[in-house]
């Protein structure tokens, strides 16, 4: 009897990873409108919950780059009748990967490998809720020109716990690619798309302040913050673009 029980337990344990690897095999609870991922991506929330065409689709799938600190973009896919759930999942993952590829490599920002995964399928989470992004994350680059004209390019990732542009004041942290917290800062909005920011790194040894604005649309929604250090040297911070794209767009200060 004991032997039978042991072999059943072993079989369950052995199969668990296999079941976990197929997105539609497991569910980790129902997706809710108030969940952080929908607050983070308002357009997607609108399609998922409000828009009558997409809201009533027979299959609704959301894919994001994972692990959670990589989740600065998303792809959602909807269909009626014709396609199976797994086909819609493939479309979502493929669209997510295409968006990542268009923006360029993330290796200078992240020490982890960011890969698109299906996280919600037909209104249920298919990854553990604890692995989902609980805050807003994204790649971040800081450009600084010293008084000799040399430019420092600092690439890492940013984390903030609220919605920039909606909440009055948002604090954020910047980590280097090894995951060490290097800078802290605050963004205070003055209008929905712009406001003031301050940044402090290395225990206050390097600090800057100025104004920021949100830019939506191609190549990706992002925030650009421009200011000066206490000594009047220019500093620019870009949130939401991988290092190379940020450098090509804003790196010349």
């Amino acid at each position, binding site marked *: 009897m004991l032997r039978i029980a042991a072999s059943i337990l072993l079989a369950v344990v052995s199969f668990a990873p296999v079941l976990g690897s197929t997105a539609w095999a497991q569910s980790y609870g129902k997706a*809710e*409108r*108030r969940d952080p991922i*929908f*607050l983070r991506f*308002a357009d997607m*929330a*609108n399609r998922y*919950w*409000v828009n009558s065409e997409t809201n009533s689709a027979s299959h609704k799938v959301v894919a994001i780059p994972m692990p959670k600190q990589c989740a600065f973009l998303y792809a959602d896919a909807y269909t009626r009748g014709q396609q199976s759930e797994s086909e819609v999942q493939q479309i979502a993952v493929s669209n997510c990967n295409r968006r990542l590829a268009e923006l360029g490599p993330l290796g200078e920002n992240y020490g982890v490998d960011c890969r698109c995964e299906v996280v919600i399928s037909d209104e249920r989470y298919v990854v553990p809720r604890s692995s989902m992004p609980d805050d807003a994350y994204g790649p971040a680059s*800081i450009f*600084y*020109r*010293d*008084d*000799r*004209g*040399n*430019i*420092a*390019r*600092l690439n*890492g990732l940013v984390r903030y716990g609220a*919605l920039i*542009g*909606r*909440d*009055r*004041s948002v*604090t954020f942290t910047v980590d*280097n690619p*090894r995951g*060490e*917290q*290097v800078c*802290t*800062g*605050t963004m*205070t909005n*003055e*209008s*929905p798309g712009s406001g003031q920011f*301050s940044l*402090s*790194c*290395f*225990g*206050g*040894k*390097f*600090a800057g*302040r100025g104004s920021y604005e949100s830019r939506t649309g191609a190549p990706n929604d992002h925030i650009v913050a421009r200011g000066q*250090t*206490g*000594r*009047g*040297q220019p500093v620019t911070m870009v949130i939401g673009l991988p290092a190379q794209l940020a450098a090509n767009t804003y790196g010349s200060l």
Partner: protein
Amino acid sequence: MRLAAGLLSLVLLAPAAGWAQSAGEVERCFQNPAACANGAAGGSPGRAAPAPAPPPAPVAARPAPAPDYATVLNSPDPDRRKIQESLRTLDKYNGPIDGNLQSEATMKAIADWQKGRNTPAVGKLTPQEAAQLNAEAARAPIRRLESPPPQTAAPVPLQPPPPSNADTLKALQARLAERRKAAEPKANAAAQALVRDLKAYIAADGKGVAGDQFASFAKWYADNKAAGRTVGEITPVIDDYGDAKAGAATTTEVKFETKQGDKTYGQCLVFAWIEASPRKNPQAFTCDDVAAVEKWKTDQALKSAWR
């Protein structure tokens, strides 16, 4: 007295002034924040020099051989230029790349680099030190502008360090609390006026301005009525208040107690409007429709005085 004050200000400014804020230094601190957060590793505060090597283990009383500086000084021209390049990469040297390791600028740069490593600042390199210098420069992610822009502006005087983020946040929260307190009378008045209109609409069994202005509320009331539910207590909680492009905007969460037979149900709607007579841009949402409420605020360009 003035001298004392001057000395005091020098002492106070020393930490900020001591940190060079060169691009290379900033990049190194970003890669290795632990070396920068608590002041100096090496001679000057904040420098991210490697930690000093542990003292050599004592050996038998045999005099150490004199350091070999001649090998590097007599090395081929490309090797000597490479050393100057490395010093430049590490922001120690800004002179010509001419292979002259005995020029005053080059020796000073070498001495600076040695000082940063807690080794004797002799201004000359042993072969091992030269290899370490080149390796350190190869690791440093510095991109130098070939032609720095002309410095025409007057030098910016040193400023005291800006307040910490924690202090900034604290001050901001205090300002917000003050602003909210100032806004409270108007926000409360707006919410109470809404509740009066809602009660009047219910008392008139589905007639009045509340239903005319908030179509979703009228539908909600009609649905409840059709289901045989009556509306009891109405409790407002202000969600947000502030100036918007068309006037003062209010969003208020209203809880309704509805009854059907001996059962009581709690229901909730969020009302959003711009203060005016009649109310402008009025809309009602279900309370779990957070994204739509936030979108309404964004559309109205609401500058919150509430949160």
